Every structure is written in C-alpha cells, then in structure tokens.
C-alpha cells in the first residue's frame, strides 16, 4: 500500500497504459508542459514527449471531435476539457457524434476514447467554472460515465476507461485532486458498474458519489450518535449503474437518501430515485429523499457558495426526515 492523491491516481493509471500501449495519447488545453490546469498531467510531457501529450488551442469542439476521429481510426485518445462547464462547447461532438456513431453505423465502428471532465464547486470559481453536470451525458445512450471519489478508484476506473471500447466520460472533482488516500501497490482495473459500500448500516441507505461520499460519511458519524445506523454507497460508476448493490442495500434498510452536487432539479440522482420508486417501491418504508445543490447557478460569494451546496447538515436533516 502507498499513499497517493486523487490527481496522482488518475495520472498513474494514464502513465501505466501509455507505457504499455502506444496508441494511447492525451490532448487538451495546457495539458503539456503546464501540466494541466489542475496539475493532473504534470510531468507527463517530459516522460512521453509532446507527440503524446498534446496542447490544443481553445477549441473544445475539435478537442472532442478529433478524439472521435482518432478513436475511429485506431488510437485510444484521452481528451481533457479544462472544466466540465465547457462540455457545452463540445456537446455535439459528445452527444451526437461520440455517443451515436457506433449505433448509427450498425455496430461496425468502435470508439475507444476517454473524455476527462473536471467538475464541482467549492473553489469560488462562480457560475461558469463550478458546475456538476452528470445528468446531461448519463442521459445520452452510447456513453459510459464514471466519477471516482478517491485515488484508488480514480486509478482503477481510469485503467478500465482506457481499456473500454466505448466512449467513457471520466468526471473528476476539483476539490478532491489534492486529497490523499491509500492505493494498492499494483493498480488494477476496477470494473464499471460496481458500486462500493463505504460504510455498512442497517437503518438507511445513502447513495452518493464523488466528493459527497465524504459528506455522507461525516453525516453518518453524526447520525450514529443519534442511534441511526447509516449505510453509505459510493456509486463510482454512474452508467452502467450497479442496480444490484442498490437493491441489496434498500432491501436491508428500506430507506433511501440520495446525495449529489448537481443542482437538484433534473440531476442524475433524480433518475436513480425514479428507478427506485419504480422498481423497488415495495421495499420502501418512506419517501426517497434527494439532497443536491439548490436550483441556482453557483454564486461567487463564499458565503453563498457554501450555502447553496449540499452540506453535511443537509444530509443529516434529510435522513432524519424519514426516520
């Protein structure tokens, strides 16, 4: 075991595959000598040269679009957008090209590509640099999507993402980049569609992912003092979704709270809540409660930003509402 930051976990996995497989390359804005806006590719330019770690102009459309073309012709590109907020600029390339090409062409083409999308708030970066936008792309058939919460998952999921024959959306949370955690000496691929129980409990299930895993665990500790035994599930993989893990937990606790940093209206946890209300209704002992960001653009002012985001106390309150 060793310690690694979340950013290092992502980087390490990319390095491993790049060392093994010449067809893997990285491109995006300032990913080269600059090392990426958040330092994720730091040192990779020096290790792999500018031919494999390529700086692009500010052209998000063609960053994704070129990844599509490169993936269709034998490469395994990893494209980085500097912020998930800029998905908007490459949305056609993601939703109408990457996601649909295999299907439109009758399954006769493969697009092994990874798109890295740093998201999340908490850095006082305001409305256009702080969004969480998981629901847009999980809604698009043809894309897979993962969102790790720690270094080991980040590394393992990145290996799987690179190995996958389909376009994979790899969300990363900016606030987690510097967070250290334990990683196995040998990094192994983590299969998609496998959630992880981060804390076992019998009274209520909290379903969450990414940064909110930590908030949920903190809430669980607080609730423990009140005699409420919380199970916390880290989805890790948004699509494919680990329905079995959810089913198992719900059958045990019969109560569900979902937490994510997306604005609540239309967030991806709404999809999961709807699925639960549809498929596991008879297991439920109470409302399916969601905790998300308020339905507003992320405000700049620290006091406002801190308020609109889901907080530990919001999770505690949500759990208590159904106990």
């Amino acid at each position, binding site marked *: 075991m060793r310690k690694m930051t979340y950013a290092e976990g992502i980087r390490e996995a990319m390095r491993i595959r790049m060392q093994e497989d010449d067809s893997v*390359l990285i491109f995006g804005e300032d990913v080269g000598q600059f090392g990426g806006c958040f330092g994720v590719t730091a040192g990779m330019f020096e290790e792999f040269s500018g*031919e494999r770690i*390529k700086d*692009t*102009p500010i*052209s998000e*459309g*063609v960053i*994704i*679009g*070129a*990844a*599509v*073309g*490169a*993936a*269709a*012709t*034998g*490469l395994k*590109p990893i494209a980085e957008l500097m912020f998930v907020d800029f998905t908007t600029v490459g949305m*056609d*390339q993601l939703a*109408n*090209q990457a996601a649909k*090409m*295999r*299907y*439109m*062409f*009758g*399954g*006769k*083409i*493969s697009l092994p590509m990874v798109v890295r999308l740093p998201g999340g708030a908490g850095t006082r970066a305001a409305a256009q640099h702080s969004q969480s936008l998981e629901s847009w792309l999980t809604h698009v*058939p*043809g894309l*897979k999507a993962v969102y790790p919460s720690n270094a080991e998952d980040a590394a393992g999921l990145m290996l799987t993402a690179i190995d996958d*024959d*389909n376009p994979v959306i790899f969300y990363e949370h900016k606030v987690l980049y510097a967070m250290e955690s334990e990683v196995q000496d040998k990094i192994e691929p983590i299969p998609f569609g496998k959630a992880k129980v981060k804390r076992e409990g019998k009274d209520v299930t909290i379903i969450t992912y990414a940064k909110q895993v930590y908030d949920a665990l903190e809430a669980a500790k607080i609730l423990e003092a009140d005699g409420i035994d919380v199970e916390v599930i880290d989805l890790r993989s948004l699509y*494919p979704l680990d329905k079995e893990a959810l089913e198992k937990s719900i059958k045990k606790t019969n109560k569900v709270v979902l937490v994510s940093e997306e604005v609540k209206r239309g967030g991806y946890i709404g999809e999961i809540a709807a699925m639960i209300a549809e498929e596991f209704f008879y297991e439920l002992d109470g409302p399916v409660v969601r905790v998300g960001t308020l339905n507003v653009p992320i405000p700049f002012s620290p006091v406002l930003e801190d308020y609109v985001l889901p907080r530990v106390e919001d999770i505690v309150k949500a759990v208590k509402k159904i106990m």
Partner: protein
Amino acid sequence: MKLENEKILEMYVNMVKIRKFEEEAMDLFAVGDIQGFVHLYIGEEAVATGACANLNEDDYITSTHRGHGHIVSKGGDIKLMMAELYGKKTGYCKGKGGSMHIADATKGILGANGIVGAGHDIAAGAGLSIKYRKTNQVCICFFGDASTNQSTFHEALNLSSIWKLPVVFVCENNGYGISLSQKNHQAIKDISDRAVAYNIPGVTVDGNDVFAVYEAVGEAVNRARKQQGPTLVECKTYRYRGHFEGDPALYRSKEELEEWLEKDPIDRMEKYLLENNIASKDKIKEISDRLDSEIQEAVSFAKESPFPDVGASVEDVYSDIVEEVK
C-alpha cells in the same frame, strides 16, 4: 499531369454510377419506398469522383448529409447502400443509419453525417491519427459551402494547420445552404480565401470539371502525404435537385439551374471521351446498361432483404452492453 485512359474511364463510370444510383433513389423516395431525409448529389458528381480518384483503399474520407456520391467514390457497395436506404437488416448499418449515416470503416469511409460540420472535426482526428501512427494515409474531408460558417470548420482547420495534419478539406460549393444563397450566408466569393486564416494553401476550381478537381485535390493529397499539412480546395458546383427530396427549390431561378445544366459534369466527360477516342458511343451505352443492371440488382437486393428484428434496436449502442428491451 497525364492520366491513363483506363483511369479516365473509371472516373466516368463512377460519375454515372452515382447519378444512376441517385436517380433511382429519387424515384424510390417519390413512391414512398424510401423514407426520411434524402439529399441528392446529382450535378456534383465530378467533385467526389475527382477527389477520391487520388485515394488508396486505406485512405479516409468524412462525408456529409449529402453523402451517396462520396461513398460510391470511395468504393462503397451500392447494394449495401440501397439496403440501408430501405432500412433493411442487410444494409450498411443494419438499417439503423439510413441515408444520412452510411459508413464503411473497411473502406476508410468515416461516415455520412447529419450534423452540418461534424465531419471537419472527425477528419482532423483521422489526420491526427495518421500522423501519430506515421502511415502514408490521408483523409479527405468533404463539406458544403454553408458548412464553412459552422464553428467546426474554424476549429478543425486551425488545429489541422498548426499540427500539419494530412487532411484535404474539399468544399463542395454548390452556392446554397438549403434556401440561403452563398452571398447571403458569407461575405466572400471564394471560400478558398478562408485558407489565409490558417496559413494554409487554398485553391478554387471548377467543380464540374472532374480533371480540375482531380488535379487540385491530387496536389493537396501529395502535400499531405509529404507531411506538409492541410489544404483547402474549393470546388464550384451545383445541385440540380432541391436541398432534400420534397424541396421544390423555389428560392432559385430556372435560368440559374439551366445555366448549370449546360455545364453538366457527366455530359462534359462524355464529350471528352468521344472526342479523344477514349470510349465509343457503344462503349458508353454498354457502361450505362451495365450500371443500370447493377443498380437494379441493388434495388432487388434491398427490396428482398428482411427488415431488422425489433430486438436489434437495443444492440450496438455499446460494444458490450445490450440495453433492455420492452
């Protein structure tokens, strides 16, 4: 440049094949056999033909909503094309794509595309891939005049230029984006002027002259293969039909159409063949008959082929996940 007669004849056959395929598609659309959007290339055959005559089987092309001509020219199989237009299981895309989404990766055809401008990016990506893999391939990106106002044109040409990607950008300037004539969608006359913005060569040629297209694109292909980067080649041409089947094209004059009919690329080529004794009238008739029966075979194949099973609708979204059926 001296072209062998055989090559010239091949180009002629290709143009006629496109024309006949599309005239058939037009009729089949009119009677309701083919549904959806069908954008015909009739009148523009010299562009795809002349351009693709420079390519090898392992070279790439990206296409547009008006893709039949490109696909035929890059060696696409008209039986599989016709079956796709019918939405049949035996079609290029198992019926999932239709006219706007035909692709054939084995022939380097990276797909027709329903999104105007999408091909620019994909071509840049193919170019990147070629350069990265250090092969001798090139990619031709076909696109219309109006698509040069789309975001992707700009981003893809800029990227291709700074990375010196082996891409040839072939603009089919037929003077219109649906109902909007070129003078109403951009303030320039020659789209090749836009090459300046990327510091790459830009040329304009008569798109109804297959030799002119062949030559200009040939030079660009050579540059690309020699790692000298992309070129923008504008081919001025015209579409005879409406934007899509069903469009009466009221936005343009009969005179304009007639002027262009005078410059028909196939007629011109036929004249050239006869004048230069490359083919006799009999030979031309023979070609026409042969192609007619090829097309009829394709139509029969398409008609007789089964529709896909509805269960197939949930396959091919992913390589490994089959979605839930109803």
